[in-house]
């Protein structure tokens, strides 16, 4: 608490609250609007924020249930949203687990071991991480196209390709985990190694159990990044039943047939869990982000 306070503090506090409140309402407006639209009848219904003509049509369609309107006509779900969500989750879980495995072992070596080429490799990883994958899409497409002729589950239009392709983006996670490892005192592992544990055993049985929190955070970070990955999925996946949510969702707002209401329900349905996960873990995620990266 400051010792010296200006006199006009009360009006200033009121002003700050007003400014913040108006800004917050501006920011939250689109999000509230989408929730409201998802409950409105019809695909381009206008109205107040609290829907006057309440309808669960869009939500039923988002869950893949055909909806019978009041006049008896039955509306079929336009897109397999749940399938897309499942595809996204499947790809994200597998790729995040693999990313976690790769980055944990590397971070251990970078944090604890002395070896040739350590500094240049670490710096090089950071530099290469800044190249957007969009630019090498042609090359990645060619790579998976050729690979798919030999190994079918790694070809174009497979989830295998998408999962494997995400393994290039590990530098950020390595830096995050490395920082955490360095904050843990190494004497426990050294004691274990004096007692005859191998390097791997010291890592596996001493350090890993101590770093579960950061592993969870990195997993969630990688998960969110993978769910939101757009460019690679848009090129590698072709069939409608293979798409991930990030690629599929835009079909709702195609050039000539905008299904605004259906999109709203699908967006709330799929966006809510991700948003919640992000807010729950924001403390650690923010720490990792300020360490050097930008959300992708």
């Amino acid at each position, binding site marked *: 608490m*400051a010792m010296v*306070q200006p006199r006009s*503090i009360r009006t200033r*506090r009121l002003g700050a609250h007003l*400014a913040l409140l108006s*800004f*917050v309402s501006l*920011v*939250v407006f*689109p999000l509230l*609007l989408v929730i409201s639209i998802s409950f409105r009848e019809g695909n*381009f219904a206008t109205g107040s924020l609290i829907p006057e003509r309440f309808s669960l049509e869009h939500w039923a369609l988002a869950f893949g249930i055909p909806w019978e309107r009041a006049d008896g006509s039955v509306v079929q779900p336009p897109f397999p949203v749940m399938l897309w969500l499942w595809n996204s989750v499947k790809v994200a879980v597998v790729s995040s687990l693999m990313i976690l495995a*790769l*980055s944990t*072992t*590397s971070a*251990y*070596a970078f944090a*604890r*071991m*002395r*070896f040739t080429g350590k500094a240049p490799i670490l710096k090089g*990883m*950071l*530099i*290469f991480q*800044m*190249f*957007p994958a*969009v*630019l*090498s899409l*042609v*090359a990645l497409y060619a790579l998976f196209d*050729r690979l798919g002729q030999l190994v079918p589950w790694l070809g174009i239009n497979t989830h295998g390709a998408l999962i494997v392709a*995400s*393994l290039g983006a590990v530098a950020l996670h*390595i830096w995050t985990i490395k920082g955490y490892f360095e904050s843990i005192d190494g004497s426990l592992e050294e004691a274990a190694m004096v007692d005859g544990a191998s*390097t791997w055993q010291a890592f596996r049985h001493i350090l890993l159990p101590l770093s579960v929190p950061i592993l969870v955070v990195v997993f969630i970070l990688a998960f*969110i990044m993978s769910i*939101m990955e*757009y*460019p690679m999925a848009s*090129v590698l996946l072709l069939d409608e039943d293979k798409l991930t949510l990030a690629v599929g*969702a835009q079909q*709702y707002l195609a050039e000539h047939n*905008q299904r*605004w209401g259906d999109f*709203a329900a699908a967006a709330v349905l*799929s*966006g809510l869990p*991700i*948003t919640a996960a992000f*807010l729950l873990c*924001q403390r650690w995620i*923010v720490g990792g982000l300020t360490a*050097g990266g*930008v*959300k*992708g």
Partner: protein
Amino acid sequence: MYTTNASRGLPRHRSRHLGERYSRWAARALVAALVISLMWLVLAFHLNGQWMFALLFLVLGASLAVVFTRRSLMSHRYIYPALAGLGVFVIFPLLYTIGISFSNYSSDNLLSEDRVRGQFLEQTYQAEGAAFDFTAYRQGSQARLYLEARDDGARDAMAEEAGDAAGVARRYASAPIDLEDAGERRVRLQPAEATPSGEPLAMREMIAARDALSALRLETPAGIELRMTGLRSFAPLLPRYAENPDGSLTDLRDDTTLTPDHETGFFVTEAGERLTPGWPVAVGLDNYTRIFTDPDIRGPFLQIFVWTFVFAGLTVTFTLAVGFVLATLLQWDQLRGKAIYRTLLILPYAVPAFISILIFKGMFNQNHGEINLILENLFGISPSWFTDPALARTMLLIVNTWLGYPYMLLLCMGLIQSIPRDLFEASAVDGGGPLTNMWRITLPLIMKPLTPLLIAAFAFNFNNFVLIALLTGGSPDILGASTPAGTTDLLVSYTYRIAFQDAGQNFGLAAAIATLIFLLVVGLSLLNLRLSKVKV
């Protein structure tokens, strides 16, 4: 920080525990299996003639074998998997892209020269006038076809193709066929001397069986295929091109020659006309000179280049301004409910971008969007956000500021917290107000640690593909551009559209622009590393 026993050269003890020994052998077997499967890939790619990919997997397999067999590289085993991922999916594509930028790789020049030649050699044509008249003779519920050469033209052409005049007959007959079945079938013909027994089908029945007849692929004993060409005739399909020893092709229809042009990667007719498909060839710096000299490409390219910088710069400025002001407000001790404000304010960051961008796409919709409804009611205007270039760019900046300010807010809040409180006390004693504090204390103190992060944010927005792809798709288009170029396109989305959305799919040109962006990004990240003084 320690050095492993292995890299010090100390001997490895043989474990007394059986289980441990087995797991070691299992690990070795796994490595061996991986190396062998990688080598199989190398061989397969090599046999397909794709040496780039063969080389990639050769390097991968060899380094795997070396790292996991030499005990002095024990530490490198831990970083090998991550490095392999980086190498295969970041560095290799990067080198490959640079390689493509010196070639004319595109949808016209996609396959290798051998495959292109193969495609030409597979082309067939129906010899003119060389037709067989045919009649169908009923045989129970089925029918036999009887073919008779209309003149000697068909026989001669077929004899030339078969290389054996004696093996080609004037008359052929087929085994009985079911004319109810309209699926594609191959039917072998046998030379015949006389018409088959049975009564010929009437014209009406022939018309009814037309689908089945046109799906038939008749094959003579010499291997020449005949297809139906009219209600009364079948004609042989002859290969259109023949290969010459010097690599050129002869068009058998008119005896002209197609010569492969290794400069342009196409077969060229005698008249100088290029035939598609072609194959990729090295074109040197052509793609780069096109970017800088071809006015139809240079104009849009420069326009997009400038807009990319403006977009990234303005985004960083706006998001920083909003984020910084909010951060100073939220750091004020007298303010209550900071936690709630904070959570609400970082909401745009927590919502997945692909969803919030699409939400804005719907809200800015010119006819039904909420924003235009509100503007219409309040001011009676309804701006065309998606068709007017200036408005489309404004919309992009508004949306991107909404998306990006929480990141700046979080950064600024973290940095402001590290400023010693005494400074503000001293300022208050000297009569400084909040604005003085902001300009004279906070901003100068956080600017230095913030700079590398701002550069990273600049680089990120420089390449903000998702925003453009989902919101405007680059439209409205630039008029008079020979490549798909839009007024809101960034360099990344421009390259993406050249490579994947243009009818020509000009991968070479796209790769050249990508290479230029790579260079810019390298510059930015080197600058960033220098400014942030990353300690390793």
